[in-house]
C-alpha cells in the first residue's frame, strides 16, 4: 500500500521560481486540525439550519390549521 505524499506549491515572486515541496509534519498535523474544526463548525451550522427548517414547517402547519392558504403563507415569508 502506498501513502500519498501531500505537497504544496510555492511561487517566489522575486525570482519567478515555482517549487513543489512536501508538507512538514507540523503542516500535516495542522491540516488535520483544520479539517476537524471545520467539520465541527459545519455540524453546528447544519444543526441550526435543520432546527430552523423544522420550526418553519411547524409554523406553516399551524398557519394552515388556522385557515391560511399556501399562497397566503408564502406571502408572509
Amino acid at each position, binding site marked *: 500500500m502506498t501513502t500519498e505524499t501531500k505537497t504544496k506549491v510555492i511561487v517566489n515572486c522575486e525570482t*519567478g521560481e515555482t517549487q513543489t515541496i512536501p508538507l512538514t509534519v507540523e503542516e500535516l498535523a495542522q491540516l488535520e486540525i483544520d479539517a476537524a474544526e471545520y467539520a465541527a463548525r459545519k455540524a453546528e451550522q447544519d444543526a441550526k439550519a435543520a432546527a430552523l427548517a423544522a420550526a418553519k414547517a411547524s409554523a406553516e402547519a399551524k398557519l394552515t390549521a388556522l385557515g391560511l392558504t399556501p399562497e397566503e403563507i408564502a406571502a408572509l415569508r
Partner: protein
Amino acid sequence: MANTFIKLGGVELTSAQSSLNFTSIPQTYTDLILVCSLRTTNSGDFGVPILRFNGAANNNNMTHRGLMLESGGVSGGTNSEGLVIRRCPGANAPADYFGSATIWISNYASSTAHKFFQGIFASPRNQNTGSAIGMNACAWSDATAISEINILDNNGNSFAQYSSAYLYGVSNA
C-alpha cells in the same frame, strides 16, 4: 485610480496540491490583487478556500463577514477565518468546473496597520444543485507587512489539478 497593475507571479497546478503560496512579495506596491480559479479534491460538494498570510499555521487573528447566495438562499456569515472565497467546486462537480475569485488586499506592505481584504467569488456548482456567488470582507488583526500569501482549503483538502492563482501588484502612485 491605479496606474500600475503588474503580475508578480502565477501558477496553474499540474497535480493536486495542499496549498498555493506566493512568497517574497515585493513591498513596493500600494495593494495586491489575487485572481484564482479553484477546485478542490473534496469528495463532498464543495471546497472552502481561505487565505492566510506570512505562513501562519492557523486562522488566529482572522475574521470575516460576508454574504452568499446558493441553492438554499442567501446567507450571511461571520467567523474567525480568512474566509474570503468561501466556495469552489468539489469532486462531485463535473470535471471542468472551477470556481473563480478576485481578492483585493489593501495596504499590504504597511508595518503599522492591520490588514483588510475583500473578495467576490463564484462557484459554478455547489451542493449538487446549483452555483454559489458571494462577497466577503476579511480582516487580519496583525500589523506585520504581508510578504507571503497562502491559499488553503479550510477543510484540509487539496486543490485539484488545473487550479490556478495569479498575484498582481497595484500602485496608485
